């Protein structure tokens, strides 16, 4: 993210210079320290200001650093990703199998070493971005129907999902009260549902013995902030091979989905129902689990997407890559469901990074059956850094403005320190201290303040390390991936934080120190 070495060398050089100079100049450091303690209130406030500034900057940089780490961690050096020519992102790519099936026959593509799954190490994939209404906390029924009887409602039918389902509510149950709410009539039920579920829910009910059909009013959805999230679904043909191509092992207890990609599970009403088998990234497993008040989804857990039940069969060890936010399912199921009948990409495994580069160039240039663009996978993910860069520039701008503000505040404090100690300066000059030693004394005092503040700020900012956050990474030409990232405070961010703090101290301390240097001893003592 930053030119770490340069920053580090600057910091080390600066510290060394100050230490040597302080020793040579015989600056009365004790005197400066004592003064900081004497005006402890101002010292404390200035240190606190440093802590806030450095802490917030480290927090912001940790976020962007997490994004960088994610894109850097994605992709395998020996992999080549093939997209249709002109596609700026997987989501826009369309590869017809008939036209492109030969790419996996390229001589540099490695063969699977798994005796149960022989063939070229190629992962044929369809990539789809899917809307998922974020399930409500109270009701996640897709279809809810019932008969109103007085102040109660007898459930005629209820679909899968949410608390209604997890509360073991079944057809025939009478709803007297639900989460403190009395479903007295259709209108009050509408109010309950309003804003709690995405889309529109058909509601069948009987009133005075005659059947009615209407729709639950969910139009107020946005008013309470209920929204949808975008899920990244990757349809694959051969999960074992795809996991091998992407170097993604499964967590213990997990398995790949079956040839059919479907299994029968017991629904909430005790009725057997079919569910699509999926493998999840660790990040998305946590995100989806939050809907069900769990920490993470495990094999056997279910969730609902596009009106279908999906059952988790395995969780990938995908932390630190964009695959962490993906759902893998059988391509022949998810492709047709979302109207994608072609492939988006094929990822080929070659020997190493050099081989990947050569293969990509050859395929792009020589493959004639269809216009394709092949790119080393690492390079493809590196291109997703555009958003990261834009965020980084924005934060650097904020850092610059805060640096100016902080420096001005520091100047204020140091000018005051000088004006209070005019007589001290006069005495120091009379007993033999040179003007430059006076300059250095006050500069050192400012730097000491910024050093303490910077160190504490770094410690405060370090608390952000490891936090999970969501964002989008993209190459800036449409598309992009919604990702779950881990905020990362590393050495270079801490070094930058310290450098920021010392720079504020230097700028804020230098001007007052120069003014102190020109104070005439007799004038000061008068």
């Amino acid at each position, binding site marked *: 993210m930053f030119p770490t070495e340069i920053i580090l060398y600057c910091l080390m050089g600066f510290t060394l210079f100050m230490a040597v100079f302080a020793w040579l100049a015989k600056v009365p450091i004790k005197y400066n320290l004592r003064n900081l303690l004497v*005006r402890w*209130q*101002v010292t404390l*406030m*200035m240190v*606190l*200001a440093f802590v*806030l*500034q450095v802490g*917030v900057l480290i*927090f*912001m940089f940790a976020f962007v650093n997490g994004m960088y780490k994610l894109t850097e961690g994605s992709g395998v050096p020996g992999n080549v990703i093939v997209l*249709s*020519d*002109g596609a700026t992102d997987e*989501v826009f790519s369309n590869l017809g199998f008939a036209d492109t099936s030969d790419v996996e026959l390229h001589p540099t593509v490695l063969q699977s070493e798994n005796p149960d799954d022989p063939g070229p190490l190629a992962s044929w994939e369809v990539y789809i*971005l*899917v*809307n998922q209404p*974020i399930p409500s906390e109270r009701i996640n029924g897709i279809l809810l129907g019932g008969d109103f009887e007085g102040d109660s409602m007898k459930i005629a039918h209820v679909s899968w999902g949410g608390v209604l389902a997890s509360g073991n509510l079944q057809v025939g149950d009478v709803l007297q009260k639900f989460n403190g709410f009395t479903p007295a009539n259709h209108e009050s039920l509408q109010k309950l549902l309003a804003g709690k579920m995405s*889309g*529109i829910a*058909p509601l069948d009910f009987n009133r005075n013995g005659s059947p009615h059909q209407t*729709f639950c*009013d969910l*139009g107020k*959805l*946005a*008013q309470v902030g209920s*929204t949808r*999230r*975008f899920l990244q679904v990757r349809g694959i043909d051969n999960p074992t091979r795809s996991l091998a191509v992407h170097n993604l092992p499964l967590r213990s207890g997990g398995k790949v989905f079956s040839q059919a990609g479907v299994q029968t599970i017991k629904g909430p009403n005790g009725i057997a129902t079919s569910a699509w088998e999926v493998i999840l990234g660790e990040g998305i497993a946590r995100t989806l689990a939050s809907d069900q008040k769990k920490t993470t989804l495990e094999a056997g857990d279910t969730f609902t997407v*596009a009106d279908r039940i999906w059952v988790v069969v395995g969780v990938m060890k995908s932390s630190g890559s964009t695959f962490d936010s993906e759902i893998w399912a059988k391509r022949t199921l998810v492709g047709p*469901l*979302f*109207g994608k009948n*072609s492939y988006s990409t094929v990822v080929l495994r070659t020997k190493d990074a050099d081989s990947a580069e050569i293969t990509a160039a050859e395929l792009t240039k020589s493959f004639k059956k269809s216009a394709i663009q092949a790119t080393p996978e690492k390079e493809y993910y590196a291109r997703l850094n555009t958003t990261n860069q*834009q*965020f980084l520039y*924005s934060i650097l701008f*904020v850092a610059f*403005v*805060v640096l*100016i*503000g*902080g420096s*001005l*505040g520091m*100047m*204020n*404090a140091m*000018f*005051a320190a000088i*004006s*209070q100690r005019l007589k001290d300066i006069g005495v120091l000059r009379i007993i033999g201290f040179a003007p430059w030693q006076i300059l250095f004394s006050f500069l050192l005092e400012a730097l000491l303040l910024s050093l303490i503040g910077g160190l504490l700020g770094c410690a405060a900012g370090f608390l952000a390390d490891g936090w999970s956050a*969501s*964002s*989008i990474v993209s190459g800036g*030409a*449409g598309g992009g991936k919604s990702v779950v990232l881990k905020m990362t405070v590393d050495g270079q961010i801490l070094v930058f934080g310290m450098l920021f703090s010392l720079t504020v101290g230097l700028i804020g301390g230098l001007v007052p120190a120069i003014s102190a240097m020109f104070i005439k001893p007799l004038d000061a003592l008068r």
Partner: protein
Amino acid sequence: MEGIAERIDSFLVPLVVTPGDAIRFTLVEWLGFFVLFTGFAFAGWAWFYFRFILRNLLRNWLRTSLTAMATMVLVLVVTLVWTILLFLSNATSEKAKDLKAIITEKWQIPSQMPFSYEADLSEGAPSKNGDFRVDTTKDSMTWQFYGGTVDPAKRTRENIVFFFCMDPNKLMTVNDPTIDSLMASIPIPATYPYRKEETGEMVEIKSLNLTDAQKKDLEKVKNAVQKGQITSMMDGLDEMAPEELVAMRKAILLTLGDKRKVVVGRERLLALNKRIGETFKLTSLNYKDIDLEFEVAGVFPDGRYNQSAVMHRDYLNDAMDDYNRRNPGKRHPLSDKSLNLVWIRVPDTASFQKVEGQIAISPKFQSPAVKCETASSGVASFLDAYRDLLWGLRWILVPFILLTMSLIISVAISISVRERRKEMAILKVLGFAPGQILIVVLGEAVIVGILSGFLGSFSTYYLINEVIGGVKFPIAFFPAFMIPFEALWWGPTIGAITALSGSIFPSYNACRIKVSEVFARIS
């Protein structure tokens, strides 16, 4: 705990997300009270304090100006962040009237629907008498996206254009024929604010040399927008000058006459290195093998559409038909996926709910299924991916900056009080009550805060809107965020509040100064 957090949130969020509203209200109250109070009863008293405080501030102009400058630059950061938050908050707030709805594919991003959906969806899918029917002449709009590059060998961000393919009339619909002919009669070219020289160079038009009658006609055009005689499905019509409206209408007529003609935003045109009247060919990025040639008919007015481009939807659809004719048995892969979005405008929430229901039960939209949602709900969904970032901006960055400001002011005031202990003691001897000393110290901080805050917000407003052209923060699909006018209040309010909170402790210390102790120390 959750309940308490929600209460705190409901109290604080309006202050942070719509600070303009909250601040405007309290400021009006405060100003009214202040003017009334000081104007009639305590004018002399207030004037005395004001002069006294001002003189104190000017005595140490260096400290005052350093504190003011620090406040100014930190106000800049807060104003920028609040601008983004306010804009997003407005974009995701539901309107009760004249609300826009988006109809898209139900489950997939990007939405790709067959163009055969267009006619029914544009009307709101009415199926029986009594159903709500959208006025398709002015209240609906379809979007298809066509992207391409002028240099297929070396694609860069600069040489790529993404077109909104739509009915150009929906950019600006003139509902009254007399207004249309009036606009046609005003001698403003479609290329305004540029004129094409004989050499081919585009020269900016400095003045239009219109007659008084034509200037009156321009006024009528402006009024026509307010009266609803000119409408648009795109946002920002009300921001356009009447000259720009006339030029835009003429450009639209050109695109209607020749489907190759397009309207492009200034910055995009500049990036492409093209000028009005020039032609260019795009090699498509998303519609494989459908490469089209265009001629620039006009430019969007400076502002939110600087990076946008609009083409006639028939041009793309005709090209698709042509492709399918030329390739019998091999339809274009996007033949049944070319409709991306349908926008409709409905008068109120009830109408929206009716249309939403009509679309949901219609058997015509099953493969793929579609959904209808308010524009604000759609935007909110896109923003969900940025929720942590926005949370950080709102609850970490802004409060930390405000605290820093408060501390900087606090340091300045503390130092000032410490240096003037003797003076405070003398004031007490002269009869000043502790409360009066408190007012003096607080007043110094608040005046510095208000003045520097105003200067900070005003300079931010001018710098961002007039010089830079908006805050270009890469969030969702918003090109740039302009500082709202109400931001001019944010600075003084932030300055006043942070100054007040920062100076409470030092001013309390000042009013508790003991005369005997001070003089004992001096002696």
